């Protein structure tokens, strides 16, 4: 890569917050993530707005998933992974010493790329989280299970077979079950890692509609490869790319509408218009 490109990246100081748009729920400051010696993310600054959908886009291997997994400290599970900088949730640094990881993971839920229900009943899948946090009474669990499955727009399809295996559902239903499972512990932020990429277009549409409902209560951060999806569902979009040392950097962050119609960075424009990536 030539000098000009290097310059461009090191100067890519975008505004981490889009002003006048309500409160920041999650605040990322100078985040860098290392896998052993390899720097996977560098200089990430980002403010995620409460009760909005923030999309993270960018070409494969640019660290989108690594960034997403930093929000609930899922990176802790990867051997050799180190995090520098700070991520705060409601102003509290989640990487500060003494912070309870379990508490962070309850407040920041996660939905994965492929539907991954536990080998349990539909009910057992959704009740798994609440049970972890000490809810034992059957009437309480029943209430949480119904509420969560309703929120995930799955209730009518499964209400008569709550005790069948979660794996007996179709792919799209399984993914909504996984969303219900994540919602059951009443998180504040929901992370979604390409939640529809393994689903057919109709199931994808349902997940997208569901996200619009969910943002009334939750702050959603979604990683997606699908430009149309980012444009359709999100309020804010963060564009990421790797620099010449293969570290992922955020090159632009703005309202989705702006990113897709008047991006400031040429590379963002190229990417969202499909000229590369």
């Amino acid at each position, binding site marked *: 890569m030539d000098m000009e490109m290097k310059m461009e990246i090191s100067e890519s100081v975008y505004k981490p917050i889009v002003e006048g748009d309500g409160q920041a729920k999650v605040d990322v400051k100078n985040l860098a993530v290392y896998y052993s010696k390899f720097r996977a993310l560098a200089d990430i600054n980002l403010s995620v707005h409460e009760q909005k959908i923030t999309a993270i886009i960018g070409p494969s291997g640019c660290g989108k998933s690594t960034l997403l997994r930093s929000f609930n400290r899922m990176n802790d599970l990867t051997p050799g992974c180190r995090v520098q900088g700070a991520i705060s949730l409601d102003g509290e640094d989640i990487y500060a010493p003494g912070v309870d990881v379990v508490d962070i993971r309850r407040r920041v839920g996660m939905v994965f790329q492929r539907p991954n229900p536990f080998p349990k009943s539909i009910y057992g899948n959704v009740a798994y989280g609440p049970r972890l946090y000490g809810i034992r009474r059957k009437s309480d669990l029943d209430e949480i299970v119904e509420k969560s499955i309703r929120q995930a727009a799955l209730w009518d399809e499964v209400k008569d077979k709550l005790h069948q295996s979660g794996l007996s559902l179709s792919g799209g239903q399984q993914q909504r079950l*996984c969303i219900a499972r994540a919602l059951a512990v009443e998180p504040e932020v929901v992370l979604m890692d390409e939640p529809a990429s393994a689903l057919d277009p109709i199931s994808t549409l349902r997940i997208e509609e569901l996200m619009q409902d969910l943002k009334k209560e939750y702050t959603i951060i979604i990683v997606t490869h699908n430009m149309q999806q980012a444009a359709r569902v999100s309020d804010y979009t963060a564009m990421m790319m790797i620099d010449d040392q293969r570290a992922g950097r955020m090159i632009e962050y703005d309202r989705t509408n702006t990113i897709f119609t008047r991006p400031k960075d040429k590379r963002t424009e190229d990417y969202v218009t499909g000229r590369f990536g």
Partner: protein
Amino acid sequence: MSHFAELMDRNRVSRGRQRKVANATMLSLTGLVTALALIPLFWIIGYVLIRGGKNINLDFFIHLPRPLGMTGGGVLSAIEGTLVVTFLAALFAIPPGVLAAFYAARYPNTPLGVVLRFSTDVLSGVPSIVVGLFAYSAIVVPMGHYSGLAGGAALAVIMLPTIIRTTEEMLKLVPATLREASLGLGAPEWKTSLSVLFPAASSGIVTGFLLALARAAGETAPLLMTTLGNERFDIGQIFRAGVQGHKSVFTILWSIVNQPVDSLPLALWKYAQQPYPERVQQAWAVALVLMLFVLIVNISARVWIQNRSRRMKG
């Protein structure tokens, strides 16, 4: 049409014929070899069925062996002995095997994990007679007598590598995101393992148990040096005597495992080398019982797996 296309086109017909001939030849060759490979299996099963089937009857299952010269009698002692020894083997092998497998699957690249995997492979290559010798010197000699306990321990060593390897493989097949989903909900590691990882791998793990069990049940050499054989072994009798003597349940169970026991492979081995036709006939019947026992364990393991995976997929 270009020059090359013409060249390539020229031998189209003969090439097609060539391909068909080659296809048919290879297909019949592989089919033939497959059939050849199946012959020993069906031969053994058929032969044992015919020779053993002639000599088998209900008495065979419910009576102790009778002295030579008397007709009738059965191999109850051997059947009971095999059940006792394989049960003990499962009891000794499954808990440590599963835990070791969990360690190997979870921490594959730690020094202990590497050593564990390597020594498991070595252990599976140790001849079973050597395992018998080990159990003899480690258990029979210190205890001063042969016992079902020593036989169970020997078979446990035989089962251990199979259990560790299959359990490890099955745990590794569970998608990483399943584990992450549980940890992502805030579940601790032990809870994730117990209520997500193991249930997801359970059907494969149980198959591993059953296959290891079926293999151990047919072992002769380790039992020769540990259980000795005991044609008077009768659990019912031991129980009755124990109850009449007002012994505790523990004492009764202990006396079952703490004495020499018979077993099917051992009975087969003993009977088959005797010069009396009725014993040889009984050896065939024992072979049939042993074979059916192993086949039933194997087949039920596979059927159970299939039903389970079908149920899981709906």
